[in-house]
């Protein structure tokens, strides 16, 4: 039993030391996910490209061949065209990308989720979106000027029903 007392003391001390080390490492050292004086801009939304350009009227002969319950005059591609997004921060273009339609048949909306860490301070931000392949310019444009504080989360969303880009 004298041997066991030794094991209780020495083994106990070793186990306690390990447990304290574990307790320490369970919350430290800290991890700097975002540098101290930075804020994070995120652009995230989903939006469908407009496929009306691909639509055409069926000819009367085509319609006649269809069963009566399927005689719809207009046919459109199942695939949606990509949308085109441009982001400009303080005059520099940081993103200019065609976003393809998602989904197996390419019939789903395009989506974007992009992070831009920015130094805290004042920034001019512009976003532009084209959802109709035929247009030359942009269908939606949003511009804002923000003053970001460190660790602030600034989000650009898109809600066509409320007129386009939303900054929050």
């Amino acid at each position: 039993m004298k041997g066991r007392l030794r094991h209780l003391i020495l083994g106990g001390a070793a186990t306690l030391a390990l447990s304290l080390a574990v307790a320490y490492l369970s919350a430290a050292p800290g991890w700097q996910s975002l540098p101290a004086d930075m804020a994070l801009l995120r652009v995230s939304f989903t939006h469908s490209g407009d496929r009306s350009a691909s639509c055409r009227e069926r000819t009367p002969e085509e319609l006649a061949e269809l069963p009566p319950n399927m005689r719809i005059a207009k046919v459109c591609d199942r695939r949606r065209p990509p949308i085109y997004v441009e982001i400009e921060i303080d005059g520099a273009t940081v993103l200019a990308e065609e976003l393809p339609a998602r989904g197996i048949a390419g019939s789903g909306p395009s989506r974007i989720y992009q992070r831009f860490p920015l130094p805290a301070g004042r920034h001019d931000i512009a976003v532009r979106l084209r959802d109709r392949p035929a247009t030359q310019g942009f269908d939606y444009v949003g511009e804002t000027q923000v003053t970001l504080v460190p660790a602030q989360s600034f989000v650009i969303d898109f809600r066509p029903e409320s007129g386009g880009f939303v900054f929050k």
Partner: protein
Amino acid sequence: MMGLRSVLRRGFDRVERGLDRLFGPDWNPLANLGPLGWFLFWIVAGTGIYLFIFFDTGVVDAYASVQWLTEDHWFHAGLARSLHRYASDLMVLAMLVHLLRELVFDRYRGRRWFSWITGVPVLWFVYLSGITGYWLVWDELAQYVALTTTELLDALPVFAEPIARNFLTPESLSSRFFTLMVFLHIAIPLLLLLAMWIHIQRISQARTKPARGLAVLTLVALVAASLLMPATSQAPADLATVPARVGIDWFLLSLYPVIELLPAGVIWTGVLVFSVLLIGLPWLPRRKEAPAAVVALDHCNGCARCVADCPYSAINLVPRSDGAPFPHEVEVNADRCVACGICMGACPSSTPFRRSGDLVTGIDLPAYSLAELRTQVIAAAGGLSGPGRVLTLACGHGAGGLPEAGRIVLPCVAMAPPALLDFIISRGLADGICIAGCAERECWNRLGGEWMRERVARRRDPFLRERVPRERLLVVWAGPSETGRLRRETAAFAEQLAAQPSYDKARPLSQDELAKGEATAVQRELAE
């Protein structure tokens, strides 16, 4: 690779010898990692159920409820919280070292593949349990985990809308997602328990409880650490900000900084490649194993001693098929048999004394039979000289793993039936026998060490006969890094034997049997 493994094996052995001195071999934590994993799981499960009583499962009040139990009720609920966290972390540590140790000691390949493969889901379920757990506190760390996790998941083409959008702004936060996490944090640990149970199905008498002393030490140390350094929350989550600096749990969340630093595609590929590699490891390369044990029904009475002693659940007791007047016989499941020979050592028919006919026993290894072992013993004894002749029966995984004069290397010392020890002494083949097993803290073949100790102590069937004087047996348990100690103890034993009068009851073998042994020895030398 083989060189690296033997270096690591010695390294482990050295560290474990140090821990033997602190804890004693039976409480050695490194020899109890699997059982410790189970013990820690139960601590985590118990404290988790207790915490659930005080936890508010809605995303709005979750943080406040955790604060309340941590501060106002620190002496029971707060303690449970700390224990819950620290025991989980210790479980990760125990699991990773356990994995590495099984790998280094080469106990994962060949017909032992099952425990390895089934350990892989255990690994992932442990991490997933921890990740969902940290989510529930809904502090800055939880927010960080939520964001990083969902951004990683969004890289997979499964969600129509990025799920990270749930954590973009205070308005987008949905309680549905949080409820899902609460559910997952209960469901995944249950799956973990199932996986842990499957993990130990192919071995017999799996140790799911650590030695009691070690369990007490672990629990006391965890409680002490919980009181000295209680687990706390970080600032409450706020989706109007992003967590810039977070305190990370480096056991459960150490992958998160890596996820941030590397592209998602690299992470997913890495996880996939790592898992596939881990699962494939038992076949990279496969271990060459001797053929499985075979039963000789003419010499088996269905006593089931071999069934009880096989560490790998490879023997089944089945109804008699040959009309002999016994209710049972045994059947070897060749897919599980690692050819350790422990069953041969357990069979009462395994007696080398018989002289007429071929030496056949109830259950035997085709590639290393009792008859072969007997011949080798006689041959090795022929090479011993001088007073104090010691014949060594060594385990291939311990200090005596390499063959040398006067030493017979076995897959496990428990392969030697007690009758063989009797035979060596009472036929005067040696003055004493050294049984050199692997390290005492844990038998390479799981149960062989314990069976041998019990048989020699005449506490387990088949018993060592009383006529074998105990002082003519030296039992040494020594790991691969203790060749020096084995040599010293054997030399001291030989001296001690030399000082004694030789064993007077010996009835030597007939000349032609000895000659047969000599011939084998010569043949072997020529072959080498």
